[in-house]
């Protein structure tokens, strides 16, 4: 509460602002705009990737000597992350029905899948045999996958908050805009991974 000598509307009243609103909730508008900026951020990173490939051509685009991308592990991680988008959405559908028990279950599963992805990515990094300083391939590989990983971590923090708030019974069928917002972000992170995976592993 931030009021005092100069009377200020209590911060707790923020939700009142929305009550006369129609259309998309304010929080969702904010999250979608934030995601738009994130799209441009990854757009910049992808630009560096393709610029690097164009600069290296006609030399072959491949990891530095002694290094090799682990296609199988990356495939498994991709499957894990895509599944987590589904489990996330099951959670959203559950809370839209007012089913808080299912929300907790699906959010928990999503969180575990996300952490599994991060652990797998760290393991992958330890096995690759090249680093960020080993030429342009290493630089763009670790930057793209690393910043995606950082966003997965950010999403995992969001999921943890959702899970904690769900445990305290803060969500209901009518009041769960935070769940929707985090789910949108999680789907976005998933889509970015599909783009990263397709670009780095499939577009060889």
């Amino acid at each position: 509460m931030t009021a005092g000598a100069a009377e200020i509307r209590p911060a707790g009243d923020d939700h009142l602002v929305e009550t006369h609103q129609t259309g998309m909730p304010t929080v969702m508008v904010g999250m979608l705009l934030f995601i738009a900026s994130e799209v441009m951020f990854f757009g910049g990173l992808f630009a560096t990737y393709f610029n690097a490939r164009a600069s290296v051509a006609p030399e072959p685009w491949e990891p530095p000597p002694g290094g090799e991308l682990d296609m199988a592990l990356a495939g498994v991680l991709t499957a894990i992350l895509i599944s987590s988008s589904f489990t996330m959405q099951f959670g959203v559908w559950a809370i839209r029905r007012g089913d808080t028990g299912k929300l907790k279950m699906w959010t928990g599963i999503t969180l575990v899948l996300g952490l599994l992805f991060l652990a797998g990515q760290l393991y992958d990094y330890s096995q690759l045999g090249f680093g960020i300083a080993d030429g342009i391939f290493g630089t763009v590989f670790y930057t793209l996958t690393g910043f995606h990983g950082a966003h997965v971590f950010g999403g995992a923090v969001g999921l943890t908050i959702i899970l904690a708030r769900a445990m305290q019974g803060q969500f209901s069928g009518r009041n769960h805009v935070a769940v929707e917002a985090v789910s949108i972000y999680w789907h976005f992170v998933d889509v970015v991974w599909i783009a990263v995976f397709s670009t780095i592993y499939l577009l060889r």
Partner: protein
Amino acid sequence: MATTTLEPRSGTIRRSWVIEWLTTVDHKKIGVLYIVNSFLFFFAAGILALVIRSELAVPGMQFLDHDTYNQAFTMHGTIMLFLFIIPALSGFANYIVPLQLGAPDMAFPRINALSFWLLPLGGILIFSGYLFGGAAAEGWTGYSPLTADRFSPGVGTDLWIIGLALVGTASILGAVNSITTIFKMRAPGMTLFRMPIFVWTVLVTAVLILLATPVLTAGLIALFIDRNYGGSFFDPSVGGNPILWQHIFWFFGHPEVYIVILPAMGVVSEVLPVFSRKPLFGYKAFVFATIAIGLLSFSVWAHHMFTTGAVFLPFFSFMTALIAIPTGIKMFNWLGTLYRGKLMLTTAMLFALGFIAMFLIGGISGVMLASPPIDFHVQDTYFVVAHLHYVFFGGSVFGVFAATYYWFPKMSGRKLNEPLGKVHFWIHFIGFNLAFFPMHQLGLSGMPRRIADYSPDAGWTVLNLASTVGAFMIAVSIIPFLINVVASLINGEPAGDDPWEGNTLEWATTSPPPPYNFDRLPPIHSERPLFFLTHGHGHAVARDEDLDETHEAQA
């Protein structure tokens, strides 16, 4: 009983004004914080400008060495752009936009506070290079490979990168907040095409910030990785590409020019109608011209890179020249507003008129630079410095001062002193032109930008001296401004709710407004609700298009 239940249970506590200002989430207080913070950085970067101009006043190295000089112009450019002009206009947007929309606050008050507090943090980080072996010294554009760790080993460049990334994040969060506010918080009746022009320009600006700034963040991160973790984004010896930095920087940097100028155009479009006693001529044309500038701004970045030989000249030249069309439309809007108006030459109006004249010069030199043959000739000369100062200083900064004189009464409840304001304007205006107009000629006669010294035989001495005198005149003009602000805060003429007989909703509430902004709102049937409230009663003078809009709103 009844009395206790009627009592608002807001849970308020009293606290000192220091804590109050440090923890506020009120958009008006945050707006004031933005503006005060911006002016502090303006004075710091202005002192650096005086240092630069003193060094250049006459040939020979006066009192700086080359490295200190490089740091001075780098910090001057970076601080002026990222910590003065953009945040100053953001501050006015923060204060004014919710009021003009009839909203109680921004959509996300706490994110609003966060996006402000990242600014001083970022600015101090950028400046702190001076404490750790020298600030960044590669120019505000930070061109690669000069920024590579082996050419710029100091930690100052890293602090510059981190500080800019923080300031950029602040901008992005602010943009999310502005757009959400504009789309979700408008008062009943405030349709998109009844929004004040300033709100429209803030909206387009916020979209540009939202989509352009993250690209710079990506580039800054790439640069940081190159410098600190052995990356090779911009290092051609291991497959990188130094031109990539220019693409990334200017993909952000050109929309950035419009991020800086559009809100200032919005300010001018608020000030001109009020002091011409006329509505803005061609409201919708202005709105669509603003949107067109926003769209075009993403397709012109490589006109900064004509001489690299790596860009398609006809396309970028053509697209750049296209921007002159919506900009020209705006010139017609402004001139049409002035035409047969009952002009009141207040200080705010003088700065707005100064904006139009100076921005016209900057715009014309801009179209000249869009032509590759001219650009090849004057690339990296003082002609470019002259152009950018006419746009940024003659344009945006004049807009900032117009906004200051125009909205100060609303923010403080007291008017600024008009005679003192006019003294400020005329010294400022003459000093500005004396400082920057000679730079056109210096550039055409070949003086490169970013040099600390020049030959006495080059024939550049007189114009450089004139420019230095002009720079000090600008500095002198700030003295009456500061005296004016302090004296008016203490003992200024009380402003009342609506000292200028304004058109827009911010004048419908008290000066300064209460924390919740409005006790009641006038009916909103046009883009000038307050004008129709004060002048429309008793006459059935609703214009046809107003009626049309009302029907549309009801439909």
